[in-house]
């Protein structure tokens, strides 16, 4: 394995990979120059050389970025021994808090330090936040804010996370936001409200042994790492070698821990991706990451890309000069990359959006006809709307081109299988008084009974479903007039009666947790022959996700609800209806289909870290390449350790940071391209308006200087 990967490596890469298991190296360079390959090979080499696997720590900012390391650890040819830990800072925090809970619980101020901790997921944290903030909304909190309530809850959670990741007190959130604000005075009240809600939530967590992400990080960093010798000793005794990849995507607390810990590692390899930091919105601090180079004895710079060619490189430089002239002054011709940017870029323009899509489809078809594999082509836009996804996939498929669009998974609550399971649960628990609407019951039957069509589902629902004193009642099939029974068919009637009997039995039996009820409903009935989930893997996956969501909810909220006499199942259904939970759907994996054109939002493609031959960029005129989404309760830059307290966030700051993130984004995309980038331009956008955002202006200026490029003036 090692031999195969070793082929094609540079001397400097080999030097790092084969170096002794001692010393600290800071390795930096742009994307695509072989830094992660070096890290992965270094890991394999350390294991080959007899370093204990369990003494090796691999730190990555996001689980997906650990994949190359996991892959090498699963290769059969790797030396036998212990397994290194591949973790994120959040994962490490959670593990340490669990392990050293008895030492930290009391100091952290938990009301029941003798009882075990309850870790909250994003979903259950959102539930508690909603539970605590809802009464405040009734009191007039956030009156001037016009966003969906659930976004409001998640921004308060986000503020707490930012405080923990930047190591400032959560009680400073409001003041920091207020002191930077320069607009309408009414916004100050919103920040006060956000602060109060954060305080209430934190207090509630301490009273009930609940640990959201922010408390896990805070306890790990402040109470364990900084103040509990046993924890530090444990970590330092366990890990002697470190590989930390993409450190620019990590938050300040991770950098501070690395800085403190570095002298104790026998060997360390810190990998820094220049001009990245795509997770600033999640607390990443590339500036502080780059300062870690001072704590390493050796600094290595990889500058040569294994991916891009000189033309792309000079396109990247030319674009950077246009986007951020102050940071990228023109170089004397002798120092410029010798490539010709016009070879790296092409564009086509049309007046109307659909014409542009037709043109893109033709170009992709040409590339494929010339032998480019479909998997080597991506179509990128700052935001992938449903209609763009549909119109382009439709065109590509009609042209016989395999295509796959990145699909933000459908929310669990919007899945037809979820509707079916929760409606049946509501019918089996009439006391919850959560009767499904007739239309929902029709859809439930459509899902539950195999071979039923919409017409007969409607007829059956109309005939058997009643509400009696507000509670749902199901009539038996046998009670229907013969004419109806015949239209519905006796086969369907028989299966329906089995469903009805099962629900009746469940309703009269002992009350059981909702997740167990659903598992039983699935196993004993819906997945049996004759029912709609039989041999249906997709429905089974949705059911499994739903059960997991309910189970986590029960483990966290079960006891308090029981104390208040509120049925857990009813509360869960209520929360689903309010969009508080089951709003996200965590898949096992969204595998990249190798042989299909990939349609994706630009950021998503970037985080996949997968270079391709051709990129098509659409909607260049959109301001979404430039502007961050509006978040009235939070602020990614102000709530960071770098932001000086009391300094105002002005329009020019907004402009500067937006330009900077856009430059990073387009640079990152170019660095993940091997062949050519094509711009699909249309005078009118998808909505029929002209849009001329900053990226379009930049290309406009750039293209004026590239007269030979395919196309014409933008």
């Amino acid at each position, binding site marked *: 394995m090692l031999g195969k990967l070793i082929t094609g490596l540079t001397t400097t890469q080999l030097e790092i990979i084969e170096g002794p298991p001692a010393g600290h190296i800071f390795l930096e360079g742009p994307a695509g120059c072989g830094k992660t390959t070096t890290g992965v090979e270094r890991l394999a080499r350390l294991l080959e050389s*007899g370093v*204990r*696997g*369990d003494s090796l720590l691999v730190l990555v900012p*996001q*689980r997906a970025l650990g994949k190359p390391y996991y892959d090498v650890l*699963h*290769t059969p*040819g*790797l030396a*036998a*021994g*212990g*397994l290194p830990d591949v*973790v*994120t800072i*959040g*994962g490490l925090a*959670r*593990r340490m808090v*669990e*392990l*050293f*809970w*008895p*030492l930290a619980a009391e100091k952290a101020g938990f009301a029941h*330090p*003798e*009882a*075990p901790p309850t870790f909250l*997921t*994003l979903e259950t944290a959102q539930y508690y936040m909603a539970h605590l903030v809802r009464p405040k909304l009734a009191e007039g909190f956030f009156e001037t804010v016009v966003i969906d309530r659930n976004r409001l809850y998640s921004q308060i959670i986000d503020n707490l*996370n930012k405080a923990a990741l930047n190591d400032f007190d959560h009680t400073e959130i409001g003041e920091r936001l207020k002191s930077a604000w320069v607009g309408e005075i009414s916004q100050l009240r919103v920040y006060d409200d956000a602060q109060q809600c954060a305080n209430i939530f934190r207090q509630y967590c301490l009273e009930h042994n609940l640990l959201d*992400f922010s408390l896990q990080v805070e306890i790990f960093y402040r109470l364990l790492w900084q103040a509990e010798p*046993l924890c530090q*000793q*444990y970590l330092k005794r366990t890990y002697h070698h470190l590989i930390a990849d993409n450190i620019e995507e990590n938050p300040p607390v991770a950098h501070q821990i690395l800085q403190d810990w570095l002298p104790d590692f026998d060997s360390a390899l810190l990998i820094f991706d220049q001009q990245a930091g795509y997770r600033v919105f*999640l*607390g990443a601090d590339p500036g502080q990451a780059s300062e870690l180079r001072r704590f390493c004895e050796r600094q290595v710079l990889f500058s040569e890309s294994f991916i891009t060619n000189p033309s792309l490189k000079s396109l990247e430089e030319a674009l950077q000069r246009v986007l951020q002239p102050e940071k990228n002054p023109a170089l004397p011709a002798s120092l410029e990359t010798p490539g010709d940017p016009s070879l790296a870029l092409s564009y086509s323009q049309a007046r109307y959006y659909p014409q542009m899509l037709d043109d893109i489809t033709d170009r992709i078809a040409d590339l494929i006809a010339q032998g480019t594999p479909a998997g080597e082509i991506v179509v990128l836009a700052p935001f992938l709307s449903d209609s763009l996804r549909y119109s382009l996939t439709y065109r590509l498929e009609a042209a016989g081109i395999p295509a796959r669009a990145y699909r933000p998974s459908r929310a669990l609550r919007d899945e037809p299988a979820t509707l079916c399971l929760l409606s049946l649960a509501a019918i089996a628990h009439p006391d919850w008084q959560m009767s499904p609407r007739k239309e929902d019951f029709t859809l439930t039957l459509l899902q539950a009974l195999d071979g039923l069509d919409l017409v007969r589902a409607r007829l059956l629902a109309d005939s058997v479903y009643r509400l009696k004193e507000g509670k749902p009642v199901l009539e038996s099939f046998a009670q229907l007039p013969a004419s109806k029974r015949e239209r519905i068919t006796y086969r369907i009637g028989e299966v329906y009666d089995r469903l009805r009997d099962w629900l009746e039995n469940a309703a009269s039996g002992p009350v*059981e*947790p909702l997740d*167990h009820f*659903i*598992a*039983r409903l*699935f*196993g*004993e*009935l819906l*997945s*049996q*022959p004759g029912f709609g989930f039989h*041999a249906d*893997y997709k429905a*089974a*996956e949705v*059911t*499994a996700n739903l059960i997991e969501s309910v189970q986590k909810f029960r483990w966290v909220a079960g006891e308090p609800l029981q104390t208040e006499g509120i049925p857990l199942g009813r509360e869960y259904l209520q929360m689903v209806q309010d969009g508080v939970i089951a709003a*996200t759907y965590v898949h*096992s994996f969204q595998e990249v289909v190798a042989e299909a054109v990939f349609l994706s939002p630009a950021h998503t493609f970037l985080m996949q870290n997968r270079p391709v031959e051709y990129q098509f960029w659409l909607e260049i005129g959109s301001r979404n390449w430039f502007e961050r989404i509006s978040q009235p309760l939070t602020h990614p830059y102000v709530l960071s350790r770098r932001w000086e307290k009391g300094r105002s966030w002005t329009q020019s700051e907004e402009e500067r940071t937006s330009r900077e993130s856009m430059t990073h984004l387009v640079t990152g995309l170019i660095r993940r391209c091997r062949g050519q980038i094509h711009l699909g331009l249309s005078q009118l956008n998808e909505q029929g308006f002209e849009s001329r955002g900053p990226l379009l202006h930049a290309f406009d200026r750039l293209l004026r200087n590239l007269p030979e490029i395919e196309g014409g003036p933008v």
Partner: protein
Amino acid sequence: MNLPDNFVFSQGNLQDYVDCKRRFQLRYIERRSWPAIKAEPALVHEEWMQLGARFHRMVEQALSGVPAEQINVSPEDEKLSLWWRNYLSLHGKLTGIENAPEEELSFFPELTLSAGVGGYRLLAKYDLIVITSAGQLVIYDWKTSVKRPRREWLADRLQTRVYPYLLVRAGQTLTGGLPVPPEKVSMVYWFAGYPDDPERFPYNQPAFERDSSYLEGLINEISGLEPTQFTLTDVLQQCTYCQYRSLCDRGTRAGEFTGEEAEGTLAELSDLLFDLDTIPEIGYD
């Protein structure tokens, strides 16, 4: 070759294969969710598994240096309190190392070892490995089953073969590079509910050779099967506690939770908890 790239074998998935080829295919190759109830009463089953996981965590805390007196169990958790008292009453004198002075022992709690076998990786997560100054390597596995399983049942489990075998193959990482002679390895099952009745399995060269060819053969067999050759088990008893029973048309209701069979599922729960450990907040990780 039908297995996904870089497929990893463990005692858990090999045991599943031996129990039912189809279950192995559904669970590990096709990765099919099929969320039916495994054992009844479901709540009792779940609570037992959670208690087992909590007990494992407490022992890990103690072995990681947390003073035992600071590890609390509420007296209302009767079962857990009893198990914990049983553990503490050992005073570190575990079977197999009773006479060794503590300062001469090296403890490796919650260790994962792996090695290549038959063109794939075989992996095991150990509760505890202790090495004595005389070079003995003792594997401990904490069992929290309701009933104390019979020796024959344990001897038959893949775990009893995979754990010592893998320690011989990969244990040099713990011995400063010195090879691990099979004779120096033993495996002890310690039952939290039956503290004075542990089960010890010594190991030796012939057993190592037997396991080596058995495991290699098993892995070769699995990787050589065509998708249609993953047949349903003939032992219908296996289906009683299997979540795929409705998919295979092997019944509707789950079997009664008796305890002995919980061992396999406990391993799954700790796998689950292990996975959850590494999945913090969405977005932040």
